[in-house]
């Protein structure tokens, strides 16, 4: 069930009602775990078994690691667990990629590369990383293993973040299991605001931009160069609003239930350097890669060359995590090169601001936007054609299309960015705000802001402006949203 579908909304309302009516913390947790399993099985019931298997392996391995005093045994259990998690992920996600790339070699021996008809279990990349972080934290003695299989199952199957993150660590989630869950007025208000914000981003912005981006990327050779630029800009807006919109809906849903999930985005398109971008974009993934890949590889503790190597390896694997395609590896590699280059730059300039902040912003946004080309393209050929069109190499002519919606959303995004950055930077953590300020904040938050700006309606007080904003947004979603099943982009990873 996609979060933006009517079926999910009914599921959520029923779940909240049940959690409200049913007494007992443990009973609520069991019901939540059951609902999460039902949610996941709604995609494909076969995949639920795999999720539970992975959970059982991790739960057992963590306890074995914790109980053993021998470092050899502990390490053995850790590597067994990591091997099983990565093995399962690799089998479902990378087998065909490996076979396709080996096809040439196999043909030399007169063999045909087989093609396995594998279903990619939804969310496998996300829950695999979640599971690995748990066992690694237990191994590092940063976390005690979960005492209850029910609690661990609740953590692993928790549906709001199961399919497409945020990647929640056990150290963040497990302590929250001690609290009483279920909707309260406060949780509903906070959660609903975030959920609505995400829904707006997804239905009103991302899905509208998808029409443009899909048309351009699916047949890049057809369009003129300027139209391809429009398609790229549309995709940049689409992927941000789609993914951050999903994250907002996930965090909002979790809040309504009673759990707090970490933020995943912090105005990434406001970044003035590539390093800053990766501190703001898909934060839970970049933090995971930093803590479980980059630092274990050595981080920046070795020589400069070793640091750059570690950065490149992290980014290349990060790219590959997104999908079994050389396009994703290219995307990761480009970002890796940019990060290395930025590190060189900072070292050479000793951290001084040589270029103005706005220039850094323009350069970063331009680079990030161009890197979306391999990320979105369907093939190498398509990537080549698009880059050719973007830089007016070869045939720049084609069908001219200057989408109205892109112009509107682009202008609103720029205005919202300027307003949002001002409002957010001037706030002193205050919950209350004047109606106009709140509307500006909402506008800023919708496209480039994030959920950290607090509730729209102040707690305990209903205002005309607040009701107007919420009612108008819901009306706009109903009137303008494309009424079709447009899956979230990150569901495919």
């Amino acid at each position: 069930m996609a979060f933006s579908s009517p079926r999910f909304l009914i599921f959520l309302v029923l779940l909240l009602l049940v959690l409200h009516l049913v007494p007992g913390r443990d009973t609520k947790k069991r019901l939540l775990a059951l609902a999460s399993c039902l949610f996941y099985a709604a995609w494909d019931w076969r995949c639920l078994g795999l999720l539970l298997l992975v959970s059982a392996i991790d739960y057992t391995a963590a306890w074995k690691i914790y109980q053993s005093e021998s470092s050899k045994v502990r390490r053995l259990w850790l590597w067994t667990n990591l091997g099983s998690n990565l093995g399962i992920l690799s089998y479902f996600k990378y087998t065909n990629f490996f076979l396709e790339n080996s096809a040439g070699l196999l043909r030399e021996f007169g063999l045909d590369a087989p093609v396995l008809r594998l279903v990619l279990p939804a969310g496998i990349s996300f829950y695999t990383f979640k599971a690995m972080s748990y066992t690694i934290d237990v191994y590092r003695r940063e976390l005690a293993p979960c005492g209850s299989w029910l609690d661990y199952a609740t953590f692993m199957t928790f549906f709001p973040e199961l399919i497409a993150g945020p990647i929640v660590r056990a150290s963040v989630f497990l302590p929250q299991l001690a609290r009483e869950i279920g909707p309260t007025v406060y949780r509903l208000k906070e959660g609903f605001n975030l959920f609505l914000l995400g829904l707006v981003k997804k239905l009103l912005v991302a899905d509208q931009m998808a029409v443009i981006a899909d048309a351009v990327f699916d047949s890049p050779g057809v369009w003129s160069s300027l139209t391809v630029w429009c398609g790229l800009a549309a995709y940049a807006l689409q992927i941000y609003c789609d993914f951050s919109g999903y994250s907002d809906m996930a965090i909002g849903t979790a809040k309504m239930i009673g759990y707090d999930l970490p933020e995943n985005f912090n105005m990434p398109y406001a970044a003035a350097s590539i390093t800053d971008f990766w501190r703001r974009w898909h934060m839970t993934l970049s933090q995971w890669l930093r803590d479980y890949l980059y630092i274990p590889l050595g981080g920046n503790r070795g020589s400069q060359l070793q640091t750059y190597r570690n950065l490149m390896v992290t980014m290349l694997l990060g790219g590959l995590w997104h999908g079994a395609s050389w396009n994703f590896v290219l995307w990761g590699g480009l970002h890796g090169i940019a990060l290395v280059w930025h590190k060189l730059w900072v070292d050479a300039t000793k951290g001084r601001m040589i270029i103005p902040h706005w220039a850094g912003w323009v350069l970063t946004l331009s680079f990030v936007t161009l890197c979306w080309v391999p990320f979105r393209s369907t093939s190498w050929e398509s990537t080549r054609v698009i880059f050719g069109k973007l830089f007016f190499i070869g045939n720049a002519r084609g069908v001219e299309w200057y989408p109205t919606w892109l112009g509107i959303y682009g202008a609103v995004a720029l205005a919202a960015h300027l307003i949002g950055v001002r409002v957010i930077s001037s706030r002193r953590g205050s919950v209350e705000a004047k109606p106009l300020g709140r509307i500006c904040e909402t506008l800023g938050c919708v496209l480039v802001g994030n959920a950290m700006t607090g509730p729209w309606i102040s707690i305990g007080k209903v205002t005309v402006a607040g009701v107007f904003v919420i009612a108008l947004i819901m009306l706009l979603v109903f009137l303008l949203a494309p009424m079709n099943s447009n899956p979230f982009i990150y569901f495919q990873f």
Partner: protein
Amino acid sequence: MKVISVQQARERRSSEGVYFRRTWGTLLRIALGLALALTSGELLCRQLFFSPSVFDRQEGWVFAPGATVVCRTEGAAKGHWDEQGVRRSVSSGGLNGRPILVLGDSFTEAIQVDDAAVYTAQVEQIISRAGIPRRVLNVAKSGNSLADYVANAARYRQMFDPIWTVVQIGDLDCGREAWDENGPSFMMDPIEKSVGTKEASYVDPRDRGLLRALGYEASIRSALFAYSIKRWQNLKEWWLTEPPMFNATRAKLRGGITEREDYPVERELEMLVEAYSNRLTILYTTPFYSPTLSQPASEVDMRLEAFARSKRISVVWLSDMYKRMAEESVAVSGFPNSRPFKGHWNETGHKEIAKLLAAELIRIGDRDGIF
């Protein structure tokens, strides 16, 4: 019984009064906020999509007499319709005699383009300059199919007395859509094994109870209400196409229409030709081409071609024009706020179609001398 002091009683009455004021205050704020949102929504809908419609017992929902239709969801245009349901002419005058009637569906209704841009208005101008000063009446209605044109032929003759008729159809108009019982449709007589037409059984919403009657009144007065009804239909269709539970990875679209194996296309076309006394031109819209799509000719396309050749029926084929424009990378359909080569004809498409249709009418005029 608990006894309270006078002071306590006063305090309780005071707090109850405060609670009462707070509750009503909150409700009033909610009502005001909602009213503002609904008003904004109404203003937005009137700018975005507003088609003042009324219910006609013979034709179902039609544009209200003298209606101005606003469409900015696809294209950006305002169209005008007169009391007889004819798209307003942009000619300055001097057109007399029996008119040329143009029938069609949403493609000819063309709410996405202004009155002057519709191909019927342009045909009127072109043939007038070529010495055929006849009015070209556009009575197209969205959702029409071949069955509608056959069923309404007598009524159109009585209302407009056309000298010639142009009928815009595509392959689906001869097939599935012409057998859809939600409007006038073809039907197969099981005993005679012949094809006949069946009148639509339109039920006036005002006769379906108080709630429907109130809904009717709201929909003809409020753009927001009318557009919301349309969106509600879209939402129901979306619900039907959601992937099946527990099997989304092997999803098939649910719903859909059961196709007959074979439509009596030739008999349908014969009925059309007879209904208009063989004084008609078919404006045929499929197969469609775009830079990314080369749609092969369907069975209906080929059967129409064979029929038209054998009966010497005037047909304007658009497929060559589509191909040519696709090769020149010019979109004949789609708008900046939709997508090129998808949806309805844009201004360029209407202009090209007008040229082709006008040329055919001039050729017929020269050949038969009827205009």
